């Protein structure tokens, strides 16, 4: 697909500042992600799961929603998505090291299990696809509140749609089908982004399903389905804008299949050399979404090489500081172990 959008697309209206922010978010995610791999190799952290290669999907999606207000129920590769919502590399480093005050969970969750009430970023479990019914539930609540006049359709301070993400392999789970079906039945303002990187750990797409495209399934649920080049941040933005408008206008759910490449092993526990040829990986790197978007911005004169270098320097500085602070921060207090298993005593319920 061509990185230059057609004339009447929403991305055409993006200001140079907005375009550069998109680049910046992708770059910041990449540099943060790379540092996590280094920390894992140094034996400083237990686990890392990467979003490298998926940045355009996530930044394109995030920039098309009301960021920090619309619900986002992400999955483990969504580092760039959550950075776009307001999560910082420092927050991520704290989760990698499991340090006191960690944003998502107070260092209870594994890294990459994002959660932040202040950004309407909703947490998920380590079990794949379980976020989909819950995201459908978030979308249901939006619709319910609107239908009952609890919020006004034009109240922009309230979430107006729910976004959820997962991998193509995870669409083999019953949760996915049940969540999508329900969203279809009730025309819920749900946008499900399937980040199709062609692999589920070692298992390739064709062993996961007997169809050519995940988006083909949309018909079966009565939701709108579209396949998009997930290595092209502007194409992703455009697809997402259309889905968001549909959701905002009460026209129902959308399934976006974003085709992208996983540029790393599945996680720090995996060695992908056993099932993926190095040639295939080298080929995938040609579609590196950050490099190709830099070319677009430089080519259009939106970004200068000097600005590009400034972004690099700034990203490194942020990542270095985040890393330093997280590494030297204290671990959580052991007395917190019992916190938040239950709600505090509630005098109305007599407990």
């Amino acid at each position, binding site marked *: 697909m061509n990185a230059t959008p057609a004339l009447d697309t929403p991305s055409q209206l993006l200001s140079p500042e907005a375009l550069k922010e998109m680049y910046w978010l992708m770059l910041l995610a990449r540099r943060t992600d790379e540092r996590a791999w280094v920390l894992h190799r140094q034996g400083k952290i*237990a*686990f890392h799961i990467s979003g490298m290669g998926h940045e355009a999907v996530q930044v394109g999606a995030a920039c098309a929603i009301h960021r920090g207000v619309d619900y986002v129920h992400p999955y483990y590769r969504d580092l760039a998505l959550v950075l776009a919502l307001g999560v910082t590399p420092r927050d991520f480093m704290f989760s990698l090291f*499991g*340090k006191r005050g960690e944003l998502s*969970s107070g*260092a*209870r*969750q*594994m*890294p990459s*299990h994002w959660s932040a009430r202040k950004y309407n970023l909703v947490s998920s*479990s*380590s*079990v*794949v*696809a379980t976020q989909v019914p819950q995201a459908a539930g978030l979308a249901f609540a939006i619709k319910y509140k609107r239908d009952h006049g609890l919020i006004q359709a034009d109240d922009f301070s309230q979430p107006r749609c729910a976004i959820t993400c997962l991998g193509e*392999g*995870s669409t*083999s*789970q*019953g*949760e996915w089908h049940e969540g999508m079906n329900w969203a279809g039945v009730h025309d819920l303002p749900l946008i499900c982004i399937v980040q199709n990187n062609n692999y*589920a*750990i*070692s*298992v390739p797409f064709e*062993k*996961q*399903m007997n169809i050519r495209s995940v988006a083909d399934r949309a018909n079966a649920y009565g939701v709108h389905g579209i396949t998009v080049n997930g290595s092209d941040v502007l194409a992703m933005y455009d697809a997402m804008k259309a889905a968001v408008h549909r959701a905002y206008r009460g026209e129902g759910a959308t399934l976006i299949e974003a085709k992208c490449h996983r540029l790393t092993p599945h996680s720090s526990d995996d060695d992908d050399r*056993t*099932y993926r040829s190095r040639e295939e990986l080298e080929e995938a790197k040609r579609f590196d979404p950050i490099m190709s978007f830099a070319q677009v911005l430089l080519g259009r004169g939106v970004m200068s090489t000097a600005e590009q270098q400034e972004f690099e320097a700034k990203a490194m500085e942020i990542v270095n500081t985040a890393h330093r602070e997280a590494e030297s921060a204290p*671990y*959580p207090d*052991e007395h*917190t*172990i*019992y916190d938040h*298993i239950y709600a505090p005593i509630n005098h109305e319920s007599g407990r």
Partner: protein
Amino acid sequence: MADKVLPMREALRNALREEMIRDERVYVMGQEVGAWDGTHKVTRGFLEEFGARRVRDTPISEMVIAGAAVGSAMAGLRPVAEIMTINFAFVGMDAIINHMAKVRYMFNGQFKVPMVLRCATGWGNQATATHSHTPEPIFAHFPGLYVGMPSNARDAKGMLKAAIRDDNPVLFSEVIALYPKPGPVPEDPDFVLPIGKGDIKRPGKDVTIVSFGRGVEWSLDAAAALEKEGVDCEVVDVRWLRPLDTALIFESFKKTNRCVVVEESLPYYSFGSEIAAQIQEHMFDYMDAPVKRVSAMDVPLPYARDIELMALPNVQKVIAAVKEVI
């Protein structure tokens, strides 16, 4: 035939491989069992040796892994299905609890379900609350299922072979932390340890420590430390949560009159609760002290390393519990 020192993962691999050679109806399915050699490398080389018809990489569909194993077992095959980690078995729970366990009974014995559901289990790898369950007692709750969990390489081989050869459905849990642990394993392809038979892992006369899986290691280490203080512990490895070898436990208890139960799982409605109840119901006249339970703490498991370790059972906690009953 001689013994050979092998890590538990190799002992399991040999057991499974030998059974696949012995019986054409035995086949393997699960996520990553083929091209990736199995998440825990138990099926290493199987795809090459047995071919894709008998070594099936499945989609990420635990309900299919468990449910289709039930169906194919009813139709005469002997599936050995693998759930990557037991956490994901929850996704296939209806197939396991309502079908795997109950088909024989519900249909008055017309159909049998000779299948094994292999699950990797255990915590301690910072995999956190939704990803670190050791929930075997939940499965053992349901009549119709056998539930086994070996504590060493030798038992792993003999128990898995028994599970595959038996006509009952077996949930077979393998502790991830034990996969690399080596031990002597009989090379005999007919080395089978009977289902439901526990084992005295260490004879002693002062206190009975009842455990299974990884808890056996903590119990043996605790027993070794306590021996220096003049306390002689007997370590009973039940091996099977179902059927439970109560006879072996009672025999030991009659001798020691004291009991500590050690498990990796959570404390409420647990293995420890069951053993304590069995002892007070059947051994009341022999009791010299209350039964003590050592388990994980009653919390969802946190990530931060120190707090995670704090929440888990360990040798020190076993020693402390033994000291409370003597």
